[in-house]
Structure formats: C-alpha cells, structure tokens
C-alpha cells in the first residue's frame, strides 16, 4: 500500500499516492488537466505538451512528472491556457482538419479540447500540406490529414496489442505515421479488433464504414465538454 502525500493544484489541497504521476493524481482528485498523447494504460510519453503545468515555479508535463509531498502546482491559469491554445491551434493548421464533415466530429479529443479552450479560429496560417489516405486495408483506414502524431496508436499496438504495426518515419514537418509493411496498411497484421484502433484521439485511424452511426446530440462531447468525466465522474462520460 503506497503512502499518501498531499499537494496543491491551483490553491486546492489534494491527496495522492506516492509514485503516481501528477496527471493521474489530478484525475483522481477531479481536476482536469488537458492532454492528447496521454492515455490510461500506456506508459507516460510527454510529447504533446498540452498537460504542461507549473510545478514549484518550473514548467513540466503532468503526465511524466511524479508527485511529491507539498508540491505547488499551477494548472488552469490564464498563461497556461493560452499556451495550450497555441499548441492546439498549431495542430489544427499543421493538419487538414475539416470538423464539419469528419466522422469523428463530436467524439474527437482535439475538437473537444479546442471547444473547451474557446478556440473559434486558429491565429496561425493554415499550411494545407498534401497528405495521403491509406485505404488499402479492407476494414481499416488511415487518414494522414488528421493525424496529430500523438503516438497513441504506436504505443498501443506495441505495448497492448503486441504487434508494433505503427511507428514514425521522417523528421520535422515531414514526420508521419508509417506501418510495418511496404504494401501499406493492407500488408500489415493489423486487425479490426486491435486496441490501437480505439486509441486514436482524432479521426486518423478508423474502422471503415462505421462513420456517423451515432446521431448528433448523442456523441461523446455533444452535451458536456471534454474533461467532464474527470471533474464529475458520475456523468455518462465517466467510462471514457
């Protein structure tokens, strides 16, 4: 049984377990820290930087920082929210995200966070980079236009599915998800039951022919903002 410690987030005292990561401790205490690359069940990754908080005056990612006794954490400050907005806006302009017809709309974490942060339009110019759709697999599709390079599929396939279907290739603005077959997705051993398919926070990795089956009004974030499941675990969202 790990020992209990106490820390402070935005002036509120919370209790945490020794060895816990800060984001998990905040979740348990009902404090939402925005995140995209972090997913329960996967090892901490710290790539999207959306969960950046200020701990004892120093910026660090909440998903890779273990808790310590008497930590003083800033989370929902104006500065940090502006910082997060900037990250999300850069993701929107780097990819080709057309929420108005995307089948992940309403269930998309990127869209959900943008709404929660009050983003109406990105302040940066769109890059309009030409990106591919790999529809070669009979049941699964990768739309690179929407990929935010969070590596959740990479890690889930490797660590939970035991396959290592996905990984990154190239660098910088050419970095992209690739698959372990020269015959594209069709040549891999990815399967429609793989957990990796459910790990994608956006509409990049999809099961084919399933789009739009949930009516508008009944989708995950139609009625309550993303993070509500953490802040009020009794809601319908608490399973996600």
């Amino acid at each position, binding site marked *: 049984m790990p020992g209990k410690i106490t820390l402070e987030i935005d002036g509120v005292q919370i209790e945490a377990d020794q060895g816990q990561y800060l984001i998990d401790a905040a979740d348990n205490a009902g404090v939402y820290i925005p995140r995209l690359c972090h997913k329960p069940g996967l090892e901490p990754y710290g790539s999207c930087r959306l969960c950046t908080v200020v701990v004892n005056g120093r910026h660090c990612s909440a998903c890779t920082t273990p808790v310590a006794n008497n930590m003083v954490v800033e989370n929902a400050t104006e500065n940090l929210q502006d910082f997060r907005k900037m990250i999300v806006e850069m993701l929107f302009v780097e990819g080709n995200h057309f929420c108005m017809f995307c089948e992940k709309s309403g269930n998309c974490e990127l869209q959900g966070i943008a709404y929660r942060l009050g983003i109406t339009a990105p302040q940066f110019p769109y890059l309009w980079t030409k990106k591919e759709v790999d529809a070669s697999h009979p049941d699964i599709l990768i739309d690179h236009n929407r990929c935010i390079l969070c590596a959740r599929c990479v890690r889930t396939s490797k660590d939970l599915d035991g396959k290592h279907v996905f990984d990154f290739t190239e660098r910088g603005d050419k970095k992209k998800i690739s698959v372990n077959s020269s015959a594209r997705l069709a040549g891999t051993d990815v399967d429609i039951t793989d957990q990796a398919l459910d790990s994608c926070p956006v509409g990049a990795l999809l099961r*084919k*022919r399933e789009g739009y089956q949930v*009516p508008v009004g009944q989708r995950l974030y139609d009625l309550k903002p993303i993070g509500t499941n953490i802040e009020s675990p009794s809601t319908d969202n608490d399973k996600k």
Partner: protein
Amino acid sequence: MVASNTNPKSKRIVIQPVTRVEGHGKVTILLDENNKVKQARLHIVEFRGFERFIQGRPFWEMPVVVQRLCGICPVSHHLCAAKAIDQIVGGENLTPPAEKLRRLMHYGQTFQSHSLHFFHLASPDLLFGFNADPSIRNIIGVAAEYPELAKQGILMRKFGQEVIKATSGKKIHGTGAIPGGMNKNLSIHERDELLKDIDQMVQWSHGALNIAKNYTLEHMDTALEFGTFESNHMSIIREDGAMDLYNGGLRAIDKDGNKIFDHVDNQKYTDIIAEEVKNWSYMKFPFIKSIGTENGWYRVGPLSRVNTCDFIDTPEAEAARIEFKDITGGKPNHLTLAYHWARMIEVLHSIEKIKELLHDPDLQGKDLVTKGDRRDEGIGVIEAPRGTLFHHYKVNKDDQVTMCNLIVSTTSNNEAMNRAVQKVAEDHLSGQPEITEGMLNHVEVATRAYDPCLSCATHDMAQMPLKVTLLNVDGQVIDERIKQ
C-alpha cells in the same frame, strides 16, 4: 463590373450580383447602337469544385460532405448522396422506418426552403411591386408593412428546420441519413413537439398559397408576358403518376403536355440526359438527348412538377393543383411568375405529408439500416425544392470515391433562366436611354422566380453591392449605378 466590348458599336450592361437569390451570379445585357437588346445572359461566377475534391475520400462521407454545397437546401444533397451511397452498400431497399424518416426530413426541407424563398426573397416584389423603392422592397420592409405575414414566414421556416433537426440531428448540415438507412428514429417527445404546431402550419400554408394564387390571377396580364415562354418540363414521378418529391422514375413532357419519356429508371439518366458546356458560365446546360441541344432544354422545379404529375396524393394540395391546372385548361402552365403559385402548392403538400407522417408509428421504429451486396457505382435522384437533383458516384475497391457527377436543379433551369432574362430585357430595357433601378429589378424578378441556388446566401443588398454600368459605343462609361 464592366466587361470589355468586342464590338465597338455595341454596349454592355452588367448586373452583378443578382440579389435575393441563393449564391453569386451576374447578368450581362448587350445592346446594339440603337439600345436594342442583342443578347442577355445569366452567368454563374462561382466555382465550387466538389466533383473534384471529394475524389479519394471514403464513400460513406459523401452524404455529410457534399451537403456542404449549400446552406439553404443541404438536406436535398444529404439525401440524394445517401440514396446513391445506399446502392454502394446494397441497401437501397430501405426499411419502412428509414424511408419514412428520410421522407419526413425531405418534406421539412421543402417546407422551409419554399417558405424562405416566398416570404424572404420573393414577397417584397409581389407585395410592393417590381418598381417599388428598394429601401422598402425587402424583408425588412415586409416586416414593417405586413408584420403578421413576416412573422408567419419566419415561423414556417423555423418549423421546417425543427423537422430537419428532429430527423438529422441539426437544423443545418446534420448526419441523419447514413448508408443503407438512418442513424436515429423520431422519439415520441420529438413527434409531440412537432404536432403542437402542425395545424397552425397547415393554416398558414393555405394563406401563403392564397397570396401566390391571387397575385397571379390579379396580375395575369403581366404574368402572361413576363419572362414567359413555352418549354419542356421534367421531374421524377411516382409509379401511379403522383407527385413524389423523394423517389420515382423520370418523366418529361413537351410544351403541349405530351410525354417525351416516362417512368424512366433514374439509374439510366445518362441514356436520356446530357450536359453541354458553354465558355461563359461555370454552370453546364443539360438537355434531353433525343431532342438535342437546340430544343432539348427543359425546366424543373415546382412549376414543372405540378405540370408533370397526374395528381397530388394529399387532398388539399390536390384541390389546389386542380385549380391551378384549370387556368390552362389542363395543359402545361409555362408562366415564369406561376412558379410562386406552384411553389406554395408544394408547401401545402409538404405540410400535409409531414402531418400524415407524424401520425405514423413506423417513425418510432428501430429497424433503421439495411445492407446487401457491395457495388462500385451509385446514382441518387431526388426532387430538391428547386427541381430534379442527380448525384452519381463511382468507388474503387478500397472504398474511395473515384468519380462524382452532380446535376443540380438550378443547372437544369439554366437555359430557362437565360431565356427569361433575355425576354424581360427585351421587353423592359430595349431602347431605353437610361437605366433605372426598377428596370434592373425586372430582370432580377425573372431570375428570382426560379429560386436559383447559385450556392449560398447573398440576399442582403446591404452587404453585396449591385453595380451596373452603361457604356457608349466607344466603351466610355455614360451611366453607372451602385446599389448598396
């Protein structure tokens, strides 16, 4: 905008944009040295490009992405694409709840779109006159002078939008229709909310019909000549000859009402219809193949549907149709201004259909999706508010769209609108030394009767200036007016 003169002895008038229509268009009128109209054309100046940029997208996106063509009647594109994609998944034989829910959405759409056009776009011309002061001749003027009527128009459109929301999830750009069916049924609560207002809507629809009918009858001298010409008419038609806005075979009639073709399987539309391209418009010119480009053009929309159908299967709209047909002794009605009357007959028909469907327990059914053998091609045809709409897709083995062809309703009316513009220009502008705002509005009224959807909404003169320039034979500007 001033276009260049290729002939030094002619001069050109440009009306840009045409106002109180959906989208962006302009009219050019070419005058000879005696100020007689030589040529008048309606140009569609937008390029949308949907047929190209959806290539490579997965086919199940089509009903949701292609509806973004329009913000006024997106349901028509949503359902027409869904009908085409149904065939890709082998689900074209919808379950009764799914087909009835789609019909309900479609009648809601027709009701709101027709109401919007009649009250917001057309009524200022009909209530105040074509030559009235433009500062009054708009929806704000209608609201000031006829507040009850303006309120009815707004609430009728709202009701149609509520029907759409209840069936598609949103008032604009919903997702209700999915390949092979629907993603939701109509709850008892949603049904009861709509039923609360239904009788009021029926009553107001009668009122609107009476305004359109009485206007036409009281101005028959004007209507007989105003942009009027004989033409072929086309629509889809139910197997028994009834008007059907959602499904049926293709029927075309000539100017005397003789059938050119009838109950043609709409999957074979390319056997009977082709499109001609002209170098001065982004809009194609469809024509009936068996007649050819010269005389094979046809009209679509409310006037054509009332002309082509044998009857309407709702009693009050059928009574209105009979009254309408009596005017021409049962022959096709070719009056451009009669589009308004026909449109309001369809408003009444739509609200009758909505009422009928709301009492059908199938709408609470749960068997909403059907699928069968996968195919690589699908064709959807539907009667959009503005006329017959075609969506045609081909997909590859990876489920990506490789070809898309859309024939939108306004395209089919392209030749007719150009003829209407030409005739009104000849009748009202020819030989006039000076341009007046009222004269120009006559040209716009002729276009407006067809309720053209040139893409999105641009019916606010305050935001979109109308600029008309008159040049002399040397190309010098001799008169110019700008409406803000």
